[in-house]
C-alpha cells in the first residue's frame, strides 16, 4: 500500500469547499489515512470523493456508547482513505453515500438493519440483511442487544419482502430459491422474463446470516482468526490473513518473513483451487462435462497436496495470529514444485481445448456481458472487474508483503462476458504458479510465528488482502484484555453480487446458471 500524491490535493480541496475533515494519526490503519468528518458533511464528502474518481471500498458502523460511529473507506491509485463520523445515539441519522456510489446501496442497508443508522436520502428504504429473526426496532450490533437475541420460537419465512414488479403482456416471474437445485448456497432470485429472455433479476440475500460480526465480539485473537476462516469457506486463507493482518497492525506485531511467504503460498494455492473448480463448473453449466471432470481432477490433486503440506484440504486455520500454524520441509517444497510443473503442462493442453471449442464459444462468448462502465460504477472486483477492464488487484496496486517485492502479471480484459471471466481466471492460475515458484525458491529461513502480545484497549487495525474473488477488507478494533470489540470483514462478493443483476439482463433464462457461476459470489461472505 502506498500514499499517492492525489490525497494531499484532495484534503486541500475539502478545506476549500468547507467540508470539515480532520486527519488524525491511526497507526493500525496505515498506510490508509483516517479522516474525521463532521456528520453534516458526510454526504458532501462522498460527493467530492466521487468527483475525484475514488473507488468506494467498504462501509461499516460501530456502537461506541453515547454515539454511533460510521466508517466509509475509499481508494484511489492504491492509497486508502477511511472517513469516520460520529452521530448521537438519540438521533442516528446520516446522509447516504448511495446517490454517489451505487456500491454503497446494500452495505448501507446492512448498517441500517444491524446498527440502526438511518440513511436519509438512500434511494431504497427496504431492509436488506434482516429477514424476520429479529424485529425492525432491534439492532444486533448495538451493545445493549445480547448475542443470544430474543428470537421467536420458529422464525417465519421471509415472505413479506416487496420485490420490484414488472407489468405488461407476456411478462412472467420466476422465483428461485432460497434452496437451489445444486449443491450450492441458499439465496433467492426473482426473475421477470418474457419468453426466454430475462428482463430483470432481483437478488434477495441474507439467508445465511450467522451473526458473524456480533459473535466476534469478546473473542481473543486466536478465536477471531478461526471465525474469520469461516466467513466464506472457499476464501478461508484470504479472510484469515486479512483478519490477522488487521489484528497484527493493531497490536503492533511484525510477523516473521517465513510466515509472510507461507501465508502467500497458501493464498495462491487457495486461488488456484477455486479457479480450477470454477472453470470446470462453468464448462459443466453449458454441458461440456469433459472439462468439468478434467478440471475437477486437477483440483482434487491440488487439494490433496494442500492437505499433505498444510494439514488441511482447504488450509483452514493455517493462518494464525502472529504467523502460520505449520512449517514446511524440503520434501513438501519439492512436491509443490513438481505439482506446479505437471499442472502447468496439463493446463496448457486443456486451455488449448477450451479456447477454441465451438460449443463453448457459442455458449460463453457474449453471454453475461458486463460493460466496463457498469463494472467500474459498481466497483466490481477480482476476475469480474478484471474481465471488464477494472484492473485493481490489491497484490499489485496496493501491495502488501510479500507481493511488494514480487513481479507478476495481472491479466485484464475488456470483453466483459463469461468467456472473458473464464479467461482471466485461467491466466491467473498461471500467474499464481509463477508466484508460488518464486516464493518457494526464496523461502526465508527462521521462525513461522511471532509471540502474541495483547493489543491495547481501543487499538484498531485494517487488513487488506486479495482473495480469489478480489480485495478483502478486514477491520478490527480491540476492547479490554485483548478481546475483540469490533470485527468487520468486507468480502468482495458485496461488490460483485449487484453486477450479476445487470449482466444477466437480455440473456436467456437457461444461461442464468453459467452467468451466476462466472461471477460466483459468496452467499456466506455476503450475508455474514
Amino acid at each position, binding site marked *: 500500500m502506498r500514499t499517492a500524491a492525489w490525497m494531499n490535493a484532495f484534503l486541500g480541496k475539502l478545506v476549500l469547499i468547507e467540508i470539515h475533515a480532520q486527519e488524525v494519526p491511526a497507526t493500525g490503519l496505515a498506510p490508509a489515512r483516517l479522516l474525521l468528518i463532521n456528520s453534516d458533511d458526510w454526504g458532501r464528502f462522498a460527493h467530492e470523493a466521487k468527483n475525484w474518481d475514488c473507488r468506494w471500498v467498504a462501509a461499516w458502523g460501530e456502537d461506541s456508547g453515547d454515539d454511533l460511529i460510521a466508517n466509509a473507506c475509499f481508494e484511489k491509485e492504491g492509497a486508502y482513505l477511511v472517513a469516520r463520523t460520529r452521530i448521537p445515539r438519540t438521533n442516528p441519522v446520516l446522509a447516504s453515500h448511495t446517490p454517489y456510489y451505487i456500491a454503497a446501496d446494500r452495505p448501507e442497508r446492512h448498517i441500517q438493519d444491524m446498527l440502526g443508522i438511518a440513511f436519509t436520502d438512500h434511494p431504497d428504504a427496504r431492509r436488506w440483511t434482516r429477514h424476520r429473526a429479529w424485529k425492525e426496532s432491534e439492532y444486533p450490533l448495538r451493545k445493549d442487544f445480547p448475542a443470544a437475541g430474543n428470537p421467536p420460537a420458529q422464525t417465519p*419465512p421471509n415472505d413479506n419482502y416487496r420485490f420490484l414488479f414488472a407489468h405488461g403482456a407476456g411478462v412472467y416471474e420466476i422465483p428461485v430459491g432460497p434452496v437451489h437445485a445444486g449443491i450450492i448456497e441458499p439465496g433467492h432470485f426473482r426473475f421477470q422474463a418474457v419468453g426466454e429472455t430475462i428482463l430483470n433479476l432481483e437478488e434477495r440475500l441474507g439467508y445465511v446470516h450467522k*451473526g458473524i460480526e456480533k459473535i466476534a465480539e469478546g473473542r481473543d485473537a486466536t478465536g477471531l482468526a478461526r471465525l474469520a476462516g469461516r466467513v466464506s469457506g472457499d476464501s478461508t486463507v484470504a479472510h484469515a490473513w486479512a483478519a490477522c493482518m488487521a489484528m497484527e497492525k493493531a497490536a503492533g506485531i511484525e510477523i516473521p518473513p517465513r510466515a509472510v511467504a507461507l501465508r502467500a503460498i497458501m493464498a495462491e494455492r487457495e486461488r488456484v483451487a477455486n479457479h480450477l473448480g470454477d472453470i470446470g463448473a462453468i464448462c459443466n453449466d453449458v454441458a461440456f462435462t469433459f472439462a468439468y471432470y478434467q478440471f475437477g481432477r486437477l483440483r482434487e490433486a491440488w487439494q490433496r497436496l494442500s492437505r499433505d503440506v498444510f494439514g488441511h484440504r482447504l488450509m483452514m486455520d493455517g493462518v494464525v495470529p502472529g504467523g502460520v500454524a505449520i512449517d514446511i520441509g524440503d520434501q513438501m517444497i519439492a512436491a509443490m514444485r513438481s505439482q506446479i510443473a505437471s499442472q502447468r503442462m496439463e493446463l496448457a493442453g486443456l486451455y488449448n481445448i477450451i479456447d477454441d471449442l465451438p460449443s463453448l464459444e457459442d455458449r460463453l462468448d457474449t453471454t453475461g456481458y458486463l460493460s466496463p462502465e457498469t463494472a467500474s460504477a459498481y466497483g466490481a472486483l477480482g476476475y469480474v472487474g478484471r474481465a471488464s477492464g477494472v484492473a485493481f488487484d490489491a497484490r499489485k496496486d496496493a501491495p502488501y508483503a510479500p507481493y511488494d517485492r514480487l513481479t507478476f502479471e495481472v491479466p485484464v480484459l475488456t470483453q466483459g462476458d463469461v468467456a472473458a471471466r473464464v479467461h482471466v481466471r485461467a491466466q491467473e492460475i498461471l500467474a499464481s504458479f509463477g508466484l508460488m515458484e518464486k516464493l518457494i525458491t526464496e523461502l526465508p529461513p527462521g521462525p513461522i510465528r511471532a509471540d502474541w502480545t495483547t493489543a491495547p484497549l481501543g487499538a484498531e487495525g485494517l487488513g487488506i488482502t486479495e482473495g480469489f474473488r478480489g480485495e478483502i477488507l478486514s477491520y478490527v478494533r480491540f476492547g479490554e484484555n485483548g478481546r475483540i470489540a469490533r470485527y468487520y470483514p468486507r468480502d468482495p462478493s458485496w461488490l460483485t453480487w449487484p453486477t450479476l443483476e445487470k449482466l444477466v439482463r437480455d440473456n436467456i433464462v437457461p444461461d442464468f446458471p453459467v452467468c451466476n457461476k462466472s461471477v460466483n459470489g459468496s452467499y456466506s461472505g455476503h450475508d455474514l
Partner: protein
Amino acid sequence: MLRILGKIQRIGIVTEPLPKNDEPALEEIGAQLQAKIGEMFSSSLAIREVDAGSCNGCELEIHALNNPYYGIERFGVHFVASPRHADMLLVTGPVSRHMEAALRRTYDATPEPKLVIAVGECGANGGEFGVSYASCGAVSNVIPVDAVIRGCPPTPSDLMRGILQAIGGLPARK
C-alpha cells in the same frame, strides 16, 4: 475433438481402484455402500443437499464426491434437485434463523421414509457459530436428525463413510 479424445485416452480412469495410502479403504467403503444401497434403495440412493447456513466449506467437499477420484455415483449415490425425489437430506449448518423455515419446508417436502444427516461441526453442534440471535445451531435443533458427519469440513472420504454408516443401521426395506 481429436484432442479431447486424446486427452481422455491419455488420462484414462483416475477413479481410485484400490485403497491408497492417502485415501484409505475408499474402495472398501464404496463396495459396502453399494451393497447396502442395492439392498435397501433398489441400487439407487437419492440425496438432496441443503445448505442451511454453512460457510460453504462443506459444500466444496460434498462437491468433491462427484469428482473422478471419488465418483460416488458409481456406488449408486446421486444428488437430486428436488427434495421430492430424495431418500436422504444432507444438511450443512449451522441452521441460520433465516433458513429455518426453508429447511422445515424442505424436510416436509421429502417423502417418507427419509433420512437426515447433519454434516460438519456446525451441522452437528453449531460449530464456530453456536446458537445466537441469528443461528439455531445444530440441525437437530430444527428437524429430526438420524446421523451426523463431523469435521470442519468433513473430507470426501468422511462423507462417504458417514453416508454408509447412516444407512448401515437401517432395517432392510424389502
